[in-house]
């Protein structure tokens, strides 16, 4: 496994190459509190091209923030930094990484060639509506990574269903793919239920979804 260092604003990110090769890359995005796998996961073994995995800010070998400030949109910027490096890619996101993958699919519809959303930590986030305001003070001396601020803040970020579906519509209208998003989740928080009701969203196993996108340019 080789690692490339990328920069997103002031944070240094670690992009791991799990398998080299020619063709379009598969980019793995991990769940909340996780880090990139150190070896190619079996469910991605059939992917015909290179496989990369990104450590989000505050996770794995990527840099930590100071004083928190984590949002899903910032992590979308992390994934966009990887996309810039790779050119085009198909995304496979777990949990929090699935939500980030959805955002990036809508934001960079020409570069993301199919996205697979899978179960993993942090899929639900902070729910569909802003909860009663509260402030949590993570212990800054806790074992890190993952950054304790990331664990708190990214488990509280609100994910309104109509916000999520706006990104699906972006992908539908601008990607040129007939079915740009595949959902492979048992857990279905409100935002994901809404995504499933949109056209252009298919349900499949991870393996079948990857095989589907591998055949499309």
């Amino acid at each position: 496994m080789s690692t490339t260092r990328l920069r997103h604003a002031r944070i240094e990110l670690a992009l791991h190459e799990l398998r080299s090769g020619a063709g379009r890359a598969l980019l793995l995005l991990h769940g909340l509190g996780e880090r990139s796998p150190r070896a190619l996961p079996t469910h991605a073994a059939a992917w015909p091209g290179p496989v990369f995995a990104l450590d989000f800010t505050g996770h794995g070998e990527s840099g930590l923030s100071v004083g928190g400030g984590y949002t899903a949109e910032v992590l979308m910027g992390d994934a966009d930094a990887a996309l810039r490096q790779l050119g085009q890619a198909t995304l496979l996101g777990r949990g929090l990484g699935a939500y980030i993958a959805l955002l990036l699919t809508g934001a960079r519809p020409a570069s993301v060639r199919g996205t697979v959303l899978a179960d993993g930590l942090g899929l639900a986030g902070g729910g569909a509506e802003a909860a009663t305001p509260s402030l949590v003070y993570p212990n800054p001396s806790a074992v890190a990574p993952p950054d304790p601020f990331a664990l708190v803040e990214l488990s509280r970020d609100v994910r309104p269903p109509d916000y999520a579906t706006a990104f699906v519509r972006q992908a539908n209208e601008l990607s040129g793919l007939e079915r740009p998003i595949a959902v492979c989740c048992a857990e279905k928080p409100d935002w994901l239920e809404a995504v499933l009701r949109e056209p252009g969203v298919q349900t499949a196993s991870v393996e079948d979804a990857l095989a589907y996108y591998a055949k499309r340019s």
Partner: protein
Amino acid sequence: MPESRTPPVRGSARFPKYTRVTLPNSTPGEGESAAAQYPGARAPDRRRTLDSVGIQLAVSEWGDPNAPVIFCSHGGFDFTGTFDVFAPLLAAAGWRVVVWDQRGHGDSDHAPLYSWDADVRDLLNVLDSTTREPAVLLGHSKGGSISTYAIQAAPHRVRAFVNIDGMPSHRPPPDVADHERTKLLATELSGWLDHRRAAGDKVRRADTLAGLADRRGRMNPRLSKEWLRYLVTRGARKDADGWRWKIDPVLRPGGFGPWRAQWSMARLASLPVPLLGLLATENEPMGWDTTPADVKPYLPRHAELVQMQGVGHFIHIEQPERTAKLVLDFLRNAA
């Protein structure tokens, strides 16, 4: 006047904190000209630096250190110096006025990341570093919104609240066709991501002092040139190639995310402390264009709402004396 008032809530003495106060007598920020003067403007009486979980915040104070405290939160892309006329007026009336540059703004640290939660946490850390007694919060624009959130998160820390045009309107955006909305969002999203890709290397454009004053004047069309030039000396620094705003170039107006105006507005109704809301009449690019009709359905019974005629979004900067009088009249009864 408020119809009824909730007595101050005394909070518990224990409040989590991971902050420490350092450099209690730090010097004025670079670029702040000792010669900069404007009638009524007065540099802070005291300055200190507060460590807010690793981010150094520049905190300024006016008035008697033993007086009751008003914490003032500036708006997005503003800085402490915008209070240089307003704060001394409150201090002269017997208040200890505490203002800080929010992270990324003014003389505070440029942070790796920015978020609403982080700003609210910084606000409460400034409170912790100053007093354990319930205090008055005053916030302009974004500062009003984060103060609203902070009061809901820690009501025991606050005894009265002044919100200066920080009540975002919940009015829906103009109707546009879905495909047009998609194009608009696509442009906004790619623009934001493109900015993030380049943000690590960005520096703000250098200009002359008069040039920065002109640029600020487009946001504050009713401010005098002298006042604008003074503000530049407080919010910008002088580099070898000219003056540039101190604000972090990573920050960008607008931005996006799942934040909804109505989440703030609807919860005004729950605020348990005396509330004075100030609104403007002149619509401006940085304002929310909120009208009294937008706010009134959400005001608690004890709230007072004043729309100041002929004033734009930057109410206390445009009309510091008039605003201070309204605030002091309100506090005389409320706090």
